């Protein structure tokens, strides 16, 4: 690869990052929201209470709008596989492509049944309608399994060997599914989907409560997603720890970048906050031996440092470290918030009443999005400069076509327009009553 490729490598990476950051929150809604909508519908089927039906229908409209935007932003990602990284796809398409081919069928099932579900309210029998939603939930699982299988393979490649610049001896199933990296990463992302969706949806109603909208409808609409997020966020701390221990073994340089560990160290300490400079973390709070303990369950364990690879094979330390700390910090706070809800529930059998709790829930939605994107920055930037870890450099994968900056600008502008449109329609849908049905009960009617 020549210098020309390098010139727009950064632009290509940023364009990919933009496309990804726009798509991944929608993936969370694709994973978790159908299950929440279906739960409401199930309550309606069980109780006949119109309130649950109204809630499920309102959420269906939001689900429909977000799914449509998810479809198109996901399409951009699949185009970019060829538009930005043609050498990656040309070299390894036969190794990892199967995952996407299967994912395509998941996507098909999702699109077909979401079409049936959205347009089937009142046109299918209630029971048939409920069942038409189940494939959407399953397709959300299989779809994330396949996509994460490919990403896990990029981090921990196997199922082939290189002969010159060609991949040979290819075993796609082994590459995709016999990969230890897959399971922590998949679990981590799948649970993240429930946390992000749960806190974002609950956050909208928490803001409503702070403004005095607090009828039975609002309480129900807050309690369901919030309980899910509250249960999922402590679990995520444990799953994240599991994933990090895997990284420590399989991608030691990435872990060293998380922690800003310049030299291989026995009994390494953990640094919270601070800034990496001159081969050490400055202004951070150091906790002796904690890193060794967390990574290897042994306070005296040796942790590999950044100096085990040359400088041009290290990821950008501060970006990765800052993203990692943001994810862990926010994740921990979310887990505490979840624990607060669970504790009040178990001891008092009600929702918390403190205003500060609802303020925290309102912030938790956007904060969980930040943690989600920070997590993906951690793993994707942390893998740099490799696109396929220790096999292909990102600079070898990038397109030879110039003018990426034009495409990047165009995409950024279009996405800005789409983002404005999404905000606009969500506000519209939040206000619009459901045609032919009583809108949500007025908030003042219900007693406190």
């Amino acid at each position, binding site marked *: 690869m020549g210098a020309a490729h390098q010139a727009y490598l950064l632009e290509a990476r940023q364009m990919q990052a933009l496309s990804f950051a726009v798509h991944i929150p929608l993936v969370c809604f694709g994973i978790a929201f159908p299950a929440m909508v279906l739960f409401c519908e199930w309550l309606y089927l*069980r109780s*006949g*209470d119109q309130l649950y039906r109204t809630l499920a229908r309102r959420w269906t*409209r939001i689900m*429909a709008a*977000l799914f449509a*935007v998810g*479809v*198109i932003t996901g*399409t*951009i990602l*699949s*185009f970019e*596989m*060829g*538009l930005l990284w043609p050498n990656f*796809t*040309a*070299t390894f*398409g*036969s190794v990892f*492509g*199967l995952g*996407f*081919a299967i994912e*395509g*069928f998941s996507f098909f099932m999702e*699109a*077909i049944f979401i*079409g*049936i579900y959205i347009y*089937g309210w*009142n046109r*299918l029998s209630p029971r048939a309608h409920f069942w038409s939603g189940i494939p959407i939930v399953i397709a959300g699982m299989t779809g994330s399994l396949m996509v994460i299988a490919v990403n896990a393979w990029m981090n921990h490649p196997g199922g082939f060997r290189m002969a010159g610049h060609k991949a*040979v001896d290819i075993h*796609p199933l082994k590459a995709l599914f016999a990969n*230890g990296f897959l*399971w922590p990463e998949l679990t981590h992302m799948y649970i993240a989907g429930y946390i992000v969706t749960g806190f974002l949806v609950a956050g909208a109603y928490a803001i409503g409560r702070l403004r005095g909208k607090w009828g039975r409808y609002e309480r129900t609409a807050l*309690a369901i997603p919030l309980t*899910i997020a509250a249960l999922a966020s*402590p*679990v995520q701390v*444990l*799953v994240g720890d*599991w994933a990090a221990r895997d990284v420590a073994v399989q991608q030691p340089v990435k872990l060293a970048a998380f922690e800003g560990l310049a030299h291989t160290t026995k009994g390494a300490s953990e640094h919270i906050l601070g800034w990496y400079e001159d081969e050490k973390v400055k202004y951070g709070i150091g906790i002796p031996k904690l890193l060794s303990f967390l990574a290897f369950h042994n306070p005296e364990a040796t942790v590999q440092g950044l100096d085990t690879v040359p400088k041009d094979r290290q990821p950008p330390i501060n970006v990765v470290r800052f993203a990692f700390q943001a994810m862990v910090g926010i994740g921990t706070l979310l887990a505490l918030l979840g624990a607060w809800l669970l504790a009040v529930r178990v001891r008092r*059998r009600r929702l918390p009443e403190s205003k500060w709790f609802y303020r925290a829930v309102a912030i938790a939605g956007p904060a969980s999005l930040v943690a989600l994107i920070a997590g993906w920055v951690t793993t994707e930037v942390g893998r740099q400069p490799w696109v396929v870890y220790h096999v292909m450099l990102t600079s070898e994968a990038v*397109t*030879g*076509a110039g003018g990426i900056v034009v495409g990047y600008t*165009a995409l950024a502008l*279009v996405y800005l*327009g789409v983002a404005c449109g*999404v905000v606009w*329609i969500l506000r*519209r*849908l939040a206000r*619009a009553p459901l045609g*032919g*049905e009583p809108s949500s009960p007025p908030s003042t009617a*219900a007693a406190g």
Partner: protein
Amino acid sequence: MHLYEVPLIFVLVGLVLYAVLAGADFGAGFWQLLAGPGERGAPIRDHAHEAMAPVWEANHVWLIFVLTVTWTAYPSAFGAIASTLCVPLFIAALGIVMRGAAYALRAGTSSVREQDRVDLVFALSSVTTPFALGTVIGAIASRTVPVGNAAGGLLSSWTGATPLIVGVLAVANSAYIAAVFLAADAKRTGRPRELQEALRARALVAGAVAGLVAVAGLIVLHADAHFLYTRLFEGSALAAVIVSALAGLATLALVFARLYEFARYSAGLAVAAVIAGWALAQRPALLKGLTVQQAAAPHDTLVLVIVAVLGGGLILFPSLALLFRLVLRGRLDYGEDADGAPALAVSDGSGLTRLLAVSSSGLLARVAGACLLIGFGTLTVAEAGWAHAIGVVALLGFMCVGFLAIVPAQMAELERE
């Protein structure tokens, strides 16, 4: 036929289905554009939107199918095509984004002015997208895509006469198919006769135009891509060309006779035959200097792709049939219905009651707590892989059981308040 050609057949079938189904969707946008803004064009614009809204996402997935099977089974060809033809592909991608966004946003519009704006974005991108994708096909057919990373001209590769005429053909053909489909839908759903007749007239005109563009295309091929021209008039490719021409004429006749349902299928056949003819004429080359055999992935990958597609098809086609049957039977027709909820035979709620009883005894909460402890022990403390598997299951169990312990009881409390 060889193993290495089988995935290509899947790709071509996907391409036919995309050209027909998503083509109808693009064409609907074209007719929205021609219908113009405001009240006058509203009947056609609304009908076009309502006919496509439940199915556009499923139709769109055929493109993803084509992309993923291509990059898995013929990765080097995919890399060459995507890098050299990045400009038209990117134009198509942006068009797809804007169309999808318009679908999402139209649901929230409340005034005619807002709707006009959304419809305009939708309609313009409905023309640029098939045109751009058509130039991609034209470029591949006229051999302007060399092997390698962006080895061809970024502009010259797709701005030759052949790519451009194929782009125009894609737009004309989409408009034609859409008019036929919309006329059929209008008749089926009992739309006003004027609308049916207006769509019939559009179908007849568009059919004639598409036919003329196809003939013009042959003249262009003769001058610009003579090798393809000569191969088109030999052997099995010639048969496909003849089938396509006959099916196109038959569609016109069926539309003329107002037999729109049959016209749907003959229009689809015409498109399928064109694509088949192109593939047969180009065989065995995929790109300039690259045969299908050379581009194909190794044996194991090909076998797995074939298994995956056939297996996926077993689930996909019944599901698609369900969707289209519901749409065509009119049971999914768009529009808010006047009455509220349908009569619901409320179950006695025994499952729920039992759940509430178990939950109030605190058993579920204790089970959830136990799951959390087991999860912590096996996932966080233990080191073995099998223990981690148990840990993940236990933690997911904590989430599910915890949810059941809390939410149904909470709902019951809220109902009582």
